[in-house]
């Protein structure tokens, strides 16, 4: 009877897990299926190494500008968000009264709950305008704007994760270090950062996949020009490309299929980056 219950429980859990996994796999499968006509039709040297995206006019399908733009915007966001986020996590764990830390953290967490349409809208009205006025740009839509906006959206991912780790490190090492007479800043610098290095890295990775997939917000502030990206120039990311053209593309055309192909390439890039990152991480931790 008891054994029975254990079995039922285990089966229920397993079914749940399998169901989730199947759903996830189906998503991948679906993207693959819809993109196959494109890969049949278009040469790899065109879609990976061409330089023009013009699906309707000259029927040129190069993802390269978008791939580069996606990487550029995401890396920029990570490079802005990580130092600020780690600094903020240190600030919250070591410099702020515990009571406030919790409140502040849950607020920062809730940034993840603000719909990206709102972010895009605010970004367009405030950030783009700000860049226009201060950087002497003709128009503020740019990789920089996308990166900055995305960085804000990534704050919760980095801050929350790192704060948890720093709290653990604090419990473990803090007084031991202070009792050697060194300052709390030296402790953070020399003990906490190395201790948290791995966790910072993992959080960065999570944030990175999130950044690569973000659509609405980025779409509203980068200008969406399918050209090679420059920091202060316009650019179009893969998710923006898909969102912009999917609604209007002709059903079952090569153009339609190419947008799924773009999605597939996005997934592959994320996988490659995760793979490289794990390798680096392994070497680093040796």
């Amino acid at each position, binding site marked *: 009877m008891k054994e029975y*219950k*254990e079995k039922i*429980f*285990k089966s229920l*859990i*397993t*079914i*749940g*897990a399998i*169901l*989730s*996994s199947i*759903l*996830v796999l*189906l*998503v*991948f499968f*679906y993207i693959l299926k819809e993109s196959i006509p494109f890969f049949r039709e278009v040469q790899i040297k065109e879609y990976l190494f061409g330089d023009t995206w013009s699906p309707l006019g000259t029927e040129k399908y190069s993802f390269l500008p978008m791939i580069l733009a996606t990487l550029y915007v995401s890396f920029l966001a990570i490079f802005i968000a990580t130092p*600020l986020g*780690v*600094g*903020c996590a*240190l*600030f*919250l764990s070591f*410099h702020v009264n515990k009571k406030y830390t919790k409140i*502040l953290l*849950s*607020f*920062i967490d809730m*940034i*993840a*709950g*603000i*719909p*990206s*349409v*709102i972010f895009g*809208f*605010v970004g367009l009205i405030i950030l783009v305008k700000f860049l226009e006025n201060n950087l002497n740009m003709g128009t503020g839509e740019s990789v920089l704007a996308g990166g900055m906006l995305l960085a*804000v959206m990534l*704050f919760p991912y980095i*801050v929350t994760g790192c704060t948890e780790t720093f709290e653990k490190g604090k419990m473990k090492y803090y007084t031991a270090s202070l009792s050697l007479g060194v*300052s709390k*800043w030296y402790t*953070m*610098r020399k003990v906490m950062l190395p201790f948290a290095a791995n966790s910072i890295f993992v959080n960065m*990775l*999570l944030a990175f*996949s*999130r950044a*690569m*997939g973000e*659509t609405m917000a980025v779409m509203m502030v980068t200008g969406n020009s399918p050209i090679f990206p420059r920091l202060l120039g316009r650019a179009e990311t893969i998710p923006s490309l898909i*969102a912009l053209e999917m609604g209007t593309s002709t059903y079952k055309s090569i153009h339609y299929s190419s947008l799924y192909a773009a999605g597939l390439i*996005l*997934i592959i890039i*994320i*996988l490659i980056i*995760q793979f490289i990152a794990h390798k680096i991480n392994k070497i680093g931790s040796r």
Partner: protein
Amino acid sequence: MENKIKDFLFKLWVILSGLTIISVTIGVFSYLLYKGFNVISTEFIFGSPKGIPLGTEGGIFPAIAGSLLSGLLSGLFGGILGLCTAIYLVFYCENKKVKHYILQALQCLAGIPSVVIGLFGYSLLIVGLGMHKSLMSASITLTIMIIPFISIRIKKALEETSNEQFICSLSLGIPKSYTIVKLVIPNAFKYIMTSLGLGIVFAMGATAPIMFTGAVIISGIPSKLTDPFMALPYHLYILVNEGLSVDMAYGTAFVLIVIVLSINLICHFVGNIEDI
């Protein structure tokens, strides 16, 4: 001496980034709340969209109801599936490779643009399974979107509950299932609740997944699971995208953010009562 300088620079970095992020966070929230506050009235909260173009007058009540319903439904589905997945990964998955691949796939899904998830939901549920565009199909699509989000967080919480307690319970002759239900889950309840809260909030804020699977520009309050529905983010999207009314958009954002904040608060609160 040199350490003093390094310490000082370090301190500068820490304090500045702390203050930057905190002020950006507070800034974003207060900007949105400030901009939206003027629009709020009983008519706005309890009325339906009116005026020409639609939405420039009247209220957003059906959208509030629709968002809450779809949020709760996908929270329910996502919560159950996410919890199952997390429990499976932590306690039952013996094959390390399988575990690794599932995790990898989940993380990857988090990086798929939500438009694609929306299109997937459309193809699978509406075209493939012949469901109507409805609350149900939209909630299922949202569930797919939040499963990685929820299960990765819950997995972390489960892993952090003491392994010693788990083994100690097993050594009393008690099987995993009972231990998980009576010990591990109550222990991690707070984290499970907050993860769930964030998941619900994430679902409630998403536009693209419901755009093809159930959200419509105008409807009443859905009375069945098979009814299409209005949702706050979609309403906002239409208002902003067609340039219908910026003020109403800020008002809608205000309501959405207040709901987001309340759901988080409720989840924190519920998470805290249980652990007495």
